[in-house]
């Protein structure tokens, strides 16, 4: 059995950050030296290639590989700046029918022969698209935002993952706004983990740099920029590889300068 970690990135609800997470995590893992491939299983609304700035370099998809009309190496798109990262689109948007769980298992088996990490960007929903994408996954990251509807859908997806023997299933809480959390206008971290009962792999703050980088086709983890979301994604990659990195506590984020000073005084730095 291969030691490759094949991880499904899923959420139930759309627009909560699956693709953003896949792209940033892919880059971060690759940077740390792990050979990584991101598989775009959301090919109906394919946009992982856009986020990675690789749109214009796609020629083939997994479909041609399985039909043996091209070799895997031809279909894999290497990232320009990060040679440890490759992208493989599962299909193209006009071909909504071909992918089956068997196809998915076949293509992932090929990828597992040569990569350390296979990240699968999953479509929203819990229907066939999700089931196909999940067919070859061994573990999963569930992405949610601190909103009631997103958490409800994530819960549904976790139930389905559990019935498929996918484990571990870990949680990433995206678009966290510390201000809204501390004023209780948004579900708190505890509210979310209370319901979903999963290990929390990371928190990503709402960060406009995410949108800027999305439009530029350069994931945040690619540059040395130090925006909160960039750090969060790097930390998630680290934790995924077994590093012990403490989680930020958004409840403490808002304590003003004075509280921080007091803390420093107590530690007798002054």
């Amino acid at each position, binding site marked *: 059995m291969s030691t490759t970690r094949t991880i499904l990135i899923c959420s139930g609800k759309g627009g909560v950050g699956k693709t953003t997470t896949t792209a940033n995590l892919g880059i971060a893992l690759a940077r740390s030296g792990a050979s990584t491939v991101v598989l775009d299983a959301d090919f109906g609304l394919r946009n992982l290639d856009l986020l990675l700035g690789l749109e214009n370099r796609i020629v083939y998809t997994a479909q041609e590989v399985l039909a043996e009309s091209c070799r895997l190496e031809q279909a894999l798109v290497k990232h320009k700046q990060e040679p440890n990262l490759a992208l493989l689109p599962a299909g193209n948007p006009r071909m909504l029918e071909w992918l089956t769980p068997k196809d998915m298992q076949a293509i992932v088996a090929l990828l597992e022969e040569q990569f350390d990490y296979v990240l699968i960007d999953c479509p929203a929903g819990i229907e066939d698209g999700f089931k196909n994408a999940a067919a070859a996954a061994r573990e999963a990251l569930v992405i949610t935002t601190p909103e009631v509807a997103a958490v409800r859908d994530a*819960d*549904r997806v*976790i*139930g389905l993952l*559990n019935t498929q023997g996918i484990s571990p299933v870990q949680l990433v809480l995206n678009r966290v706004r510390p201000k809204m959390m501390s004023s209780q206008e948004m579900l708190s971290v505890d509210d979310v983990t209370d319901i979903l*009962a999963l290990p929390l792999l990371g928190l990503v703050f709402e960060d406009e740099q995410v949108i800027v980088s999305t439009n530029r086709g350069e994931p945040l983890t690619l540059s040395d920029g130090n925006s909160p979301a960039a750090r969060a994604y790097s930390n998630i990659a680290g934790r995924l590889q077994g590093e012990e990195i403490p989680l930020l506590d958004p409840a403490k984020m808002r304590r003003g300068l004075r509280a921080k000073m007091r803390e420093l005084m107590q530690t007798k730095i002054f």
Partner: protein
Amino acid sequence: MTLHLPNQRSQHWKDALPGLLNQESSAPVELDCGEWSLNCSDWQQLLQLLNTMGRQLRWIRSRNPLTVVSAAALGLDAHLEGNCEPTAAGSDEPDGLLIHQGTLRSGDHLQCDGDVLIYGDVNPGARVSAGGDVMVWGRLRGIAHAGCHGSTTARIVALHLRPVQLRISTAVARGPEDQPLDGLTEQARLDQGAIVIEPAETRRFR
């Protein structure tokens, strides 16, 4: 005068109802649903049909507990009738206990004929229905239906009882909105047809 929906085997109620309504006067309708199992969307269709015929629904009679529950959930005046209370009087024998280990997540629906003990949470969006008692060794935050075949003595007990909705037999109630005291196990039971929530009794279940 009462309108009777047709026997399930002879005709579908949707086909029969317009004819039945035409025969009648314009008086408010008393509807006998017989054995039909009508869910909330059936009721909505039925109400719409009545509406377009300019008729009002006064009250409902049914021999099917599920029909009464869904009607009650929509705020209709519904009554269960007939010999449909299998566990109501004198039966000390529970239909057996089902133990479910693990949390029910959104979209899950656990059903059983006897009592059920859930060792885990019932999350928002999940449902549990039992012919007998529903016991949750964990947090109940979804929908629970005890006595779903009509038993009026069934109870719902949870370490943390804050469901979206509670049903016992044919009664429906929304969950309380305030948080329970920490460490207080609560139960819901029927008291004169209405669901009451109180600290759980320590006596053995049925």
